[in-house]
């Protein structure tokens, strides 16, 4: 597979020909974008203030493998002709513009592909920087020269070459700035599998966007008789844009910026708002420059924030993985025991079978029983290895609906060998019916395993009859509880200290287990608490939000 096939899920999930749906989307999208661009035209001036079709085409190319580009470019042609022919432009000029529009998309996408592998990510400052320099700067600049030259060559209109260049440059650059990140961000969001948002989050997004639109309309689309404009007017949308950047990241900003642009352009096109100068060219340029200068820093701010939280997330995930591997290392003796058991059974069964074959060859029933047990033992060894491999794997966080009891049982079987060699009896007290929870299976297993191993460590000095470890699951209203209870000496420090990083009572301990466990549980919207029990021993209580749906 080459590096360019990293198309998002939307395109990748298609049956052959895989370019068909993207091509259709481009054809329709291009037409709509062109009509939209025409609506943004500042009359009587003939050039649109924001011309999105080129940027849409560019984004589509970025999302597609290089070998499919031609299909997409071809698909844009009908949309282009359908849109342009309505405006009474000569066919030659229509085709000329098609060529220059395609050239912008091609230049931008090709330049980007040189520097960025796959689809540019909006949680990487490097990718976004290159995206701005290529798609929003280099591509409009180069294609504008071609465009203006074609217009002059064909002899359409009366504008001078440099007039054409400057108007089209800003129009195309602004469009690229608004449209390309918008499409990339939403495509990435779709490809990642849309995360479930809580109602409060939707409400916040709705408040943000309606507030932003209202402010933009007030500032940029109200009748503006006064020649003087208070500078504060231009900053009016800023709080909302910052809100979008901080709370909703790049996705929020790339969605908020076009909303502001559309409101502003709509106002300006209708002769409203502060951008009114003597010539339409100047009006358009002032508005475009305002939008560009407002957008770039906000976009970069959101990306920088997203990048920081991504790096934090990655290093936390590395640390989580490391502590998991360290814990499995501690369990290695027990795991060897866990594998040795089925191996012992297989060997003894096979040898017994040899004896039976030699001494009582007629007895088929016993042989079939033996083979059945060998299969069982082999499967059990396979299960141990599967579980182990899953725990060792370093993967992205994957959330899915999980059965809490099954989580506990899986962990118990992984720890079984270790518990047995330490002479600890693990007593499961699992609720008969529990609602499911939502989370990352491996991480939650890591938490439970960590608590079980800690509990076992705490009971190493107990009398044999007291080495009882209870794992208790139960449900209360909207919550699922997983409690790990030991009969050890309990703890003497305040329970918050237990969860601090690098606090440990074990000679070989790193002191990371509980602190990581707590952060895993918190990331799942739950709580991890520790209490000393009255009768002796400690209890670690995991509380997780239950999924509404009953299994």
């Amino acid at each position, binding site marked *: 597979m080459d590096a360019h096939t990293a198309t998002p899920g939307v395109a990748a999930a298609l049956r052959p020909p895989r370019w068909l749906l993207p091509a259709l989307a481009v054809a329709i999208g291009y037409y709509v974008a062109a009509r939209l661009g025409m609506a943004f035209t500042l009359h009587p001036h003939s050039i649109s203030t924001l011309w999105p079709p080129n940027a849409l085409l560019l984004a589509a190319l970025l999302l597609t493998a290089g070998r499919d580009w031609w299909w997409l470019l071809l698909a844009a042609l009908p949309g282009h002709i359908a849109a342009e022919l309505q405006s009474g432009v000569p066919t030659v000029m229509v085709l000329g513009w098609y060529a220059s529009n395609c050239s912008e998309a091609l230049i931008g996408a090709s330049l980007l592909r040189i520097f960025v592998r796959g689809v540019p990510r909006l949680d990487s400052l490097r990718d976004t920087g290159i995206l701005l320099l290529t798609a929003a700067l280099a591509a409009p600049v180069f294609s504008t020269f071609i465009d203006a030259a074609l217009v002059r060559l064909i002899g359409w209109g009366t504008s001078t070459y440099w007039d054409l260049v400057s108007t089209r440059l800003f129009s195309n650059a602004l469009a690229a700035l608004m449209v390309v990140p918008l499409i990339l961000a939403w495509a990435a969001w779709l490809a990642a599998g849309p995360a479930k948002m809580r109602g409060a989050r939707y409400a916040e997004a709705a408040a943000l966007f309606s507030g932003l639109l209202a402010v933009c309309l007030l500032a940029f689309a109200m009748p503006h008789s006064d020649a003087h404009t208070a500078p504060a007017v231009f900053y009016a949308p800023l709080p909302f844009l910052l809100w979008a950047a901080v709370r909703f990241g790049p996705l929020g900003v790339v969605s908020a910026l076009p909303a502001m642009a559309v409101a502003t352009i709509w106002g300006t096109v209708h002769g409203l708002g502060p951008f009114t100068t003597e010539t339409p060219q100047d009006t358009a340029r002032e508005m475009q420059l305002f939008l560009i200068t407002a957008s770039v820093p906000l976009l970069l701010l959101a990306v920088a924030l997203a990048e920081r939280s991504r790096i934090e997330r990655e290093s936390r995930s590395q640390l989580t993985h490391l502590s998991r591997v360290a814990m499995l290392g501690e369990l290695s*003796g027990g795991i*060897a*025991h866990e594998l*040795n*058991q*089925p*191996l*012992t*059974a*297989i*060997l*003894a*069964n096979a*040898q*017994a*079978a040899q*004896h*039976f074959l030699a*001494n009582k060859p007629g007895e088929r029933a*016993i042989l079939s029983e*033996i083979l059945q*047990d060998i299969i*069982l*033992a082999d499967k*059990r060894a396979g299960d141990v290895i599967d579980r182990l491999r899953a725990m060792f794997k370093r993967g992205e966080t994957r959330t899915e609906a999980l059965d809490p009891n099954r989580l506990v049982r899986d962990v118990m079987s992984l720890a079984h*060998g270790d*518990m*047995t*060699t*330490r*002479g*600890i*009896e*693990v007593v499961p007290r699992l609720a008969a019916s529990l609602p499911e929870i939502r989370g990352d299976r491996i991480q939650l297993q890591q938490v439970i395993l960590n608590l079980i191993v800690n509990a076992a460590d705490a009971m190493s000095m107990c009398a*044999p*009859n007291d*080495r009882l470890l209870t794992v208790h699951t139960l449900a209360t209203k909207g919550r699922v509880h997983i409690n790990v209870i030991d009969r050890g000496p309990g703890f003497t420090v305040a329970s918050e200290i237990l969860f601090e990083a690098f606090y440990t009572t074990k000679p070989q301990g790193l002191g990371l287990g509980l602190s990581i466990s707590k952060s895993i549980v918190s990331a799942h919207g739950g709580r991890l608490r520790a209490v000393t029990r009255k009768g002796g021993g400690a209890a670690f209580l995991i509380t997780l939000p239950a999924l509404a749906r009953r299994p």
Partner: protein
Amino acid sequence: MSIARANVTVVDDDVLVLRSLDRLLQSAGFEVEVFSSPKDFLEKRTANPAGCIVMDLSMPGISGLELQQALFGTRDGRPVVFISGQGSVPASVQAMKAGAIDFLTKPIDEAQLLGAVRVALDKDRAARGQRAEQAAITACLAALTPREREVLAGVVAGKLNKQIAAELGTAEKTIKVHRARMMRKMAVDSVAELVRLWTLTQPPQA
């Protein structure tokens, strides 16, 4: 000598392992009895059986070593063969010190297991024979009169009839009569044989 039919008792918490060992030992011709938990074993075992015990060292609840200790408190003197998923040196040393026949690591070599079981059964048989003889001697001793027992003590201590008579304050002739009766009751012909039987009844000196 009649002893109960030798059987091998297997205690392992892992049912798959338990079944496989059951089959292996049966296929080698042993009578096998299995228990899947130490508790089960302690509750359901027969009182004073012949045979040996093959048990897992690490089991939940009571470990093999603890079970071995628990058996010392009872009259169950069967030899123990330990099997273990991982041979930790301290555990094996402790087990062997406490009189285990062998300490085998899983997966178990068939020849080693069967060899250890045979050694354990031989040892059990020998110990059982010895115990039966002891019981017979104890029965003979119980049949002696107090005076005969005093005479026996003197004879075993290597004293002459004259010395014994002096100590007990009777005539030498009377002692001779007691002595002859005592020898007959103990079913021995010589003093050497009497001494051997006597030492068998004595608790071993540490």
